């Protein structure tokens, strides 16, 4: 079931992740953090705290690299939140403190109709998009070709939540599909432009969160509004894309698998077995260690158990299901790569 081992020479973390994203053989399953591994403990360790680590490129890079240097993951992901481009679009922000994520004040949306949507010409010059681009450059220089650096560019569905307001946008999606499509169509420029700029800065792959989750909308919605657009992203953006949608998504994985994206970052509300059966090898899954119940509340043994469940099911990249809780213990996060190595030692070759 699992990846072949044995004949494959030891790979660098970057080679390993990129091979897995192409669904090619790897020396061992890569450990990946497509959303965020920032924790308060890691912030203290390197002296790069929220909110500064979300706004200052040097601090952002410093905190991000702990994912590799301290935790032993094969990837580095400098974007800890989902708000950088929304801030650059002009959304009102709440930057919060050391112990909480920043957020958009969605009760005060900036737009309501498609014609309101104007992408600022200097979107990529704004301090909060620049910060990500600079951080990627710093990391690329610091780690050369050794580690896989993943960027993040938000999809139009998530951007609409931030700029129009979740409830208003969801009602629009029901009342006026045409208008909804016009909104998405205008916002997709942000996704592409910010993604391309991150490639230029040195990103190897991009996470593309687009929260059409089963907690909010039906699987049919994904097909109706997003599938075609996600296919377009694959042809417009020339590096591997990792779609991120948290929550229950099995009912839309078949559509997701048709987009041509390299990978889908999936949530623990979906079992590894049922998910693998749904995607049928058309897209690589990344995931799905549970955040609140396992990584945050339990110990290394439970983490190992969940990692192994994924490996046993043949999931090709392993990692937490979404941005991990900021109070998660480092010990639990370190256990993810350890558990992967242990699994390969004990089980690989026997499968």
């Amino acid at each position, binding site marked *: 079931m699992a990846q072949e081992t044995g004949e494959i020479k030891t790979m660098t973390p970057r080679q390993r992740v990129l091979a897995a994203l192409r669904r090619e053989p790897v020396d061992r399953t890569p450990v990946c953090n497509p959303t965020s591994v920032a924790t308060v403990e890691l912030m203290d360790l390197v002296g790069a705290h929220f909110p500064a680590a979300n706004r200052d490129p040097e601090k952002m890079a410093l905190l991000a690299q702990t994912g590799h240097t301290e935790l032993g993951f094969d990837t580095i992901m400098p974007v800890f939140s989902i708000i950088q481009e929304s801030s650059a679009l002009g959304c009102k922000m709440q930057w919060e403190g050391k112990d909480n*994520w920043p*957020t958009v004040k969605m*009760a005060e949306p900036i737009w309501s109709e498609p014609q309101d949507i104007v992408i600022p010409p200097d979107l990529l010059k704004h301090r909060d998009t620049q910060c990500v681009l600079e951080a990627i450059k710093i990391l690329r220089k610091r780690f050369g070709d050794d580690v896989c650096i993943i960027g993040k560019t938000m999809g139009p569905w998530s951007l609409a939540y931030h700029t129009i307001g*979740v409830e208003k946008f*969801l*009602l629009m999606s*029901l009342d006026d599909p045409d208008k909804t499509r016009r909104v998405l169509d205008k916002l997709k420029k942000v996704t592409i432009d910010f993604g391309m700029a991150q490639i230029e800065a040195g990103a190897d792959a991009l996470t593309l969160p687009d929260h059409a989750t089963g907690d909010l909308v039906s699987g049919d919605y994904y097909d109706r509004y997003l599938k075609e657009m996600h296919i377009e992203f694959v042809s417009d953006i020339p590096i591997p894309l990792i779609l991120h949608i948290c929550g229950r998504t099995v009912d839309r994985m078949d559509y997701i698998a048709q987009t041509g994206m390299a990978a889908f970052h999936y949530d623990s509300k979906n079992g590894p077995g049922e998910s693998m059966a749904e995607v049928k090898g058309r897209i690589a899954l990344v995931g799905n260690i549970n955040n609140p119940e396992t990584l945050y509340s339990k110990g290394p043994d439970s983490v190992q158990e969940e990692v192994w469940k994924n490996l046993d099911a043949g999931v090709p990249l392993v990692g937490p299901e979404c941005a991990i*809780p900021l109070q998660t213990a480092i010990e639990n996060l370190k256990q993810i790569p350890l558990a992967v190595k242990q699994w390969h030692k004990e089980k690989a070759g026997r499968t």
Partner: protein
Amino acid sequence: MPELSDVHNEFIRAEIEEFILDENEQRHIVQMYAKISPQMQDIAATIIDGDNHLSDELTKKALDGGVEAIQIMDNGLIAGMAIVGIKFRENFIFVPEVLACARAMKAGMAHIEPILSAAGIEPIGKVIMGTVKGDLHDIGKNLCIMMLRGAGFEVIDLSVDVSPEMFIEAFEQNSATVIGMSALLTTTMPNMGVTIEAFIDEGLRDDVRFMVGGAPVTPEFAEDMGADAYGANAVECVEVAKRLAGETQTATA
């Protein structure tokens, strides 16, 4: 024992048959609807269908025709919401559809509320709801509020990012007996306990019942922080609020 065929409205019959699959729940809903007049069933149907224009129109018509406001609220609007809540809980419908039902409910209530308050008709209870400090997730909380209002509660909505001080202030200004707190982030969940502590410090804890909910919250966590009850979804939120409001009424009586 009333049968499904005793429900007059064809659309509602089909909804019950297709979506209310639990036998007890179905019996309960059929019993309720069998007693409701065809005209009120038509209003309930507009809620289930999420049609705010029709809900507005039929509510106005019923009032003009002499039906009592409280009748329309209980047998039309609230009865409709009961089916919506179950469909959402069972994943037959999702948030956009529920938001549309809420909008239809609001359209009807816009005619009903002024009449009820002018007549001095008391709500079945008063609840303060808010998402705790540092947390801006409010979709789940808003659905709970909608179901609470749909069940006849008066709800004071403190919105999001609500500090303990703001909960205390609202409590002191309103004669509410139940406070509902929502949190979606593990980083903000502890603020529920902090709020309860603040009520203890102010000597107000015995006058109020706390219910908590939100995806990361568990019954164990609720107990640890000293909450009185936990609710897993909007339907449970209503059940819990009814129970807690009952407790405080007997406690103060």
